[in-house]
């Protein structure tokens, strides 16, 4: 038995879709944010797997940059969530409709 690239493709797709589903069905803003992190991680896994099987390090560079941008994104996003909680007193996405036209 040997592990092929197909194993990583399927695992990555599963993780990505679990993240997307979590973003759709959950209303807690923090858990939606965690779902986004899950999707980013699944993409990273695919990059690393392809970098290994194609014997190149280009994929590893992309993972490095994705992680740096994800760190910046999380710091900004959590600051916005804290500000929203102070402003509205909730993190329920259905109640945050101040931008609704």
């Amino acid at each position, binding site marked *: 038995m040997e592990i092929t690239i197909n194993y990583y493709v399927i695992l990555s797709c599963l993780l990505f879709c679990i993240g997307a589903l979590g973003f759709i*069905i959950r209303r807690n803003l923090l858990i939606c944010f*965690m779902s986004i992190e899950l999707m980013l991680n699944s993409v990273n896994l695919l990059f690393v797997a392809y970098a290994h099987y194609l014997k190149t390090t280009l994929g590893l560079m992309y*993972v490095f940059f994705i992680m740096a941008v994800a760190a910046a994104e*999380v710091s900004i996003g*959590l*600051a916005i969530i804290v500000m929203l909680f102070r402003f509205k007193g909730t993190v329920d996405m259905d109640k945050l409709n101040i931008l609704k036209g």
Partner: protein
Amino acid sequence: MITNYITIIVGIIAVIAAISTVLQKNPVYSAVSLIIVMIALAINYLLLNAEFIAAIQLIVYAGAIMVLFVFVIMLLNLGEVKRIKIEATPGRIAGAILVGLFLLQLIITGLNVSSQVPGIDRFVMETKGLDSTKVIGYALFSDYLLPFELVSIVLIVGIIGAVVLGKKRE
């Protein structure tokens, strides 16, 4: 081959922990499940000969980002939701169906792409002479110098933005 079994077990753990992340009632349990996913992925990176990425995954994701999440959950003092209200609104049903179709499409496309690359389905474990940390270091400071500097600007903007947004205003 014991590494093959480890790979599969770690993959199963990652999927179960991901489902747990999405379905937990308490946000703290969600965060812990997400940490398990990230550790499982770090083990996968190690098995894929990407030691540097595995270390960065543990330090940045499991260490810094998730600590930030847990800290914010603590700060907001969120209680447990009574029940996960998944009302079957039409939009949500349509979204779930779309995600299912998307999963199917992703898997089909991914397998199709990977079958078109010659020799990719052979698992080759030996990567002697390819020290990934060293190669990444050389590439970062030669070919990717400009993106590297741009990423540092992004991080500075992130820090300043967090400070400005978190400041108490009257």
